[in-house]
């Protein structure tokens, strides 16, 4: 018998544990010609804030050893534009839609969450806290525990949707942020976001990216992500969505084994658009080969 690989992320029922990582799969249509969206565990769309934004100047990405550095700068259509241009398309599919949201202020986060709250076809919200609070000293929400708590609480107060804060990786105690999210009523957490990094051009004597720094993603960060997901999963009872450098089923099985209840495929989709679907297939095949009846028996099964 084929193993049951369905999973539940804080109230979001997924037919398989593989979702797309925000910002690496567009809003859905971009890959619809190449991938059967119905075979995805969930679609997480590119980050949405209140109003339409243009994002950063070029260059926005650069390749580094076994990874990608990006500073796209969160361009997007804004809430209304997203609901108008993409939700009708997404509703056509039988796949949970998770909207990744961000804001420049705590108020904006709450406002965006509120506007998405009653929208049919939205399964949950993922909160990108890896951006600066422009109103208060521009410290990044995700690396200041007090600000992180305030933003999660504010969003929790604004929506009944399953809420999944996405933890920033550049903190010394990830468990503290995981517990804080749980205490603030989050239904799940996801991690890791891309890792703050820098690439420079010796000839030009300047940073490569227009934004100077960018976020590192891809295979290079997998060992860092695995440790953080392991620590976060041990710290909380709510489900954890693990990501960071996943490009094959084995990678995904590693994240699930250390305690993730689901995984997200990011940068790898740029290389092989069908990665998420292949990963889900590979997970099923592995569990079958190992004679494991249900994914839940594999999740957190590491001996450590």
């Amino acid at each position, binding site marked *: 018998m084929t193993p049951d690989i369905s999973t539940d992320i804080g109230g979001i029922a997924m037919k398989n544990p593989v979702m797309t990582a925000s910002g690496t799969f567009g809003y859905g249509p971009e*890959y619809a010609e190449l991938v059967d969206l119905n075979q995805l565990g969930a679609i997480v769309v590119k980050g949405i804030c209140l109003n339409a934004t243009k994002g950063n100047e070029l260059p926005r990405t650069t390749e580094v050893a076994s990874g990608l550095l990006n500073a796209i700068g969160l361009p997007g259509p804004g809430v209304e534009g997203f609901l108008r241009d993409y939700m009708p398309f997404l509703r056509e599919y039988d796949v949970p839609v998770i909207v990744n949201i961000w804001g420049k202020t705590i108020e904006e986060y709450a406002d965006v969450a509120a506007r998405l709250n009653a929208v049919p076809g939205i399964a949950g919200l993922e909160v990108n806290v890896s951006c600066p609070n422009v109103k208060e000293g521009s410290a990044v929400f995700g690396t200041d525990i007090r600000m992180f708590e305030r933003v999660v609480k504010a969003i929790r107060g604004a929506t009944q949707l399953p809420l999944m804060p996405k933890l920033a990786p550049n903190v010394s105690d990830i468990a503290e942020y995981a517990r804080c999210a749980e205490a603030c009523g989050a239904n799940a957490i996801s991690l890791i976001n891309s890792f703050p990094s820098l690439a420079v051009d010796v000839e030009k004597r300047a940073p490569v990216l227009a934004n100077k720094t960018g976020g590192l993603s891809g295979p290079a960060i997998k060992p860092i992500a695995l440790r953080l997901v392991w620590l976060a999963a041990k710290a909380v009872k709510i489900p954890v969505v693990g990501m960071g450098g996943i490009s094959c089923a084995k990678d995904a099985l590693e994240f699930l084994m250390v305690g993730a209840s689901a995984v997200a495929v990011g940068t790898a989709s740029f290389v092989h658009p069908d990665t998420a679907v292949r990963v889900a297939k590979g997970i099923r095949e592995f569990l079958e080969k190992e004679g494991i009846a249900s994914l839940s028996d594999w999740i957190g099964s590491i001996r450590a």
Partner: protein
Amino acid sequence: MQLEQATVVAHAPIQGSYNLLQMNAPGVAARVCPGQFIHIKVPYLEECILRRPFSVFRVEGALLSILYKDVGKGTRTLQYLEPGESLSILGPLGHGFPQLQAGNFPVLIAGGYGMAALYLLARRCATKGVAFFGGRSAQDILCVSDFEALGWDVRVTTEDGTQGRQGLVTLALDDWFAHEAKGHKPELFVCGPGGMLKAAAERAERHQCTAWTSVDNNMGCGVGACLTCVLKVKDGESWTWARACREGPVFNSRDILWEELV
């Protein structure tokens, strides 16, 4: 647009640092239109994770070929590929060249791999017109005989004068506009370095004709998801981003904010 495992049929250096890679790719070959590109994952180069975009040069049945120049890690490693080996390609991608408007006279302007990128158009275009090829020196001038065989009038310029007329492509182009364009309604199809695209766009404006320019911004996903490849295009009084991999790589030159192009 599809993912396909192509098989190398032939692979060899052809001239200067250019190589011709011919592969069997029935799916992509059947669908490709002039000006579109394919996105290649270079085998054996795991630490470079991104694909590399290449314009389609020729297609004959299931056979699809690209002409590429060795400029860095990916294109250097690509050269190790041997007949029989397979590689993952994604394509056809992007929005290529439109059909020549009825009654117009086609003018091709190309530099570097642009000569390869315009070949499919040159072949499929019913009217054969004039083609301006420019490069630093003779070894940068590709496919002249291929174009002539199709019936195109090819005008070569090289900066060092080692082939054709000495100077920039615009020199020959401006002469043509001055002495030969009369009676023609020129429509420009351009693929080459940024400078050449800008110059052509400027000529199109001056002579009030249409120029289709193919840009080659760096790319990530190649399908419109990552927003790496964007460029600024006019949007009424303001501007908006367009994706070279989706809305492009071919744009009507009058839509591009040339002064903003990186």
